[in-house]
């Protein structure tokens, strides 16, 4: 069974530009989560999508946005990039089933570098 996939692996952008990151969940998973892992800041929750809707949002400015498509894949957009947006962006997917504890499975990540 294929795991969570993310693209691109690496992304280099200039300050002020926009970045688009993509995620495909495990087949059958309807929920997608986005996390940011920035140096010195640890892993922070960004966004949660389920069944095409944004269900929760972390403490990030509105220039971080995204969407979930009918096939449950997801896109994270970061507008007006700032240097501190440089981080590893991790996508996770989950099957909304209580007995397995809503376990989240993580993709390989996209390393975003803003210069």
């Amino acid at each position: 069974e294929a795991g969570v996939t993310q693209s691109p692996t690496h992304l280099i952008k200039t300050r002020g530009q926009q970045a688009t990151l993509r995620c495909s969940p495990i087949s059958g998973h309807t929920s997608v989560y986005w996390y940011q892992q920035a140096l010195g800041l640890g892993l922070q929750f960004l966004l949660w999508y389920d069944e095409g809707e944004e269900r929760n949002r972390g403490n990030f400015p509105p220039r971080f946005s995204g969407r979930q498509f009918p096939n449950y894949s997801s896109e994270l957009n970061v507008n007006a990039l700032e240097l501190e947006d440089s981080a590893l962006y991790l996508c996770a997917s989950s099957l909304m089933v209580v007995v397995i504890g809503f376990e989240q499975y993580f993709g390989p990540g996209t390393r975003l570098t803003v210069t």
Partner: protein
Amino acid sequence: ELKVEQNPLFLSMQEGKNYTIYCNYSTTSDRLYWYRQDPGKSLESLFVLLSNGAVKQEGRLMASLDTKARLSTLHITAAVHDLSATYFCAGGFTDKLIFGTGTRLQVFP
């Protein structure tokens, strides 16, 4: 809001020794997770602990959960070099996970 604290932040241990990583959380959490991360890599799920008293073991790693004390532990038995990685605990609900700071484990001969 849920806060998760791990200690120690860094752990250097000799092969063959035992040690425990501690994870304290501030408020009720539906469940507790342990993940492993190798340098430059993603997170690998190790354990999901769903209820008070839960204990799970996989190889040299054993995780437990005490919801009354709001404490989870990850015990390493007879460490080997392959266990060198960063270990994260995370608490949370359906809508998100809150991660601890991580414990960087280095196992040396």
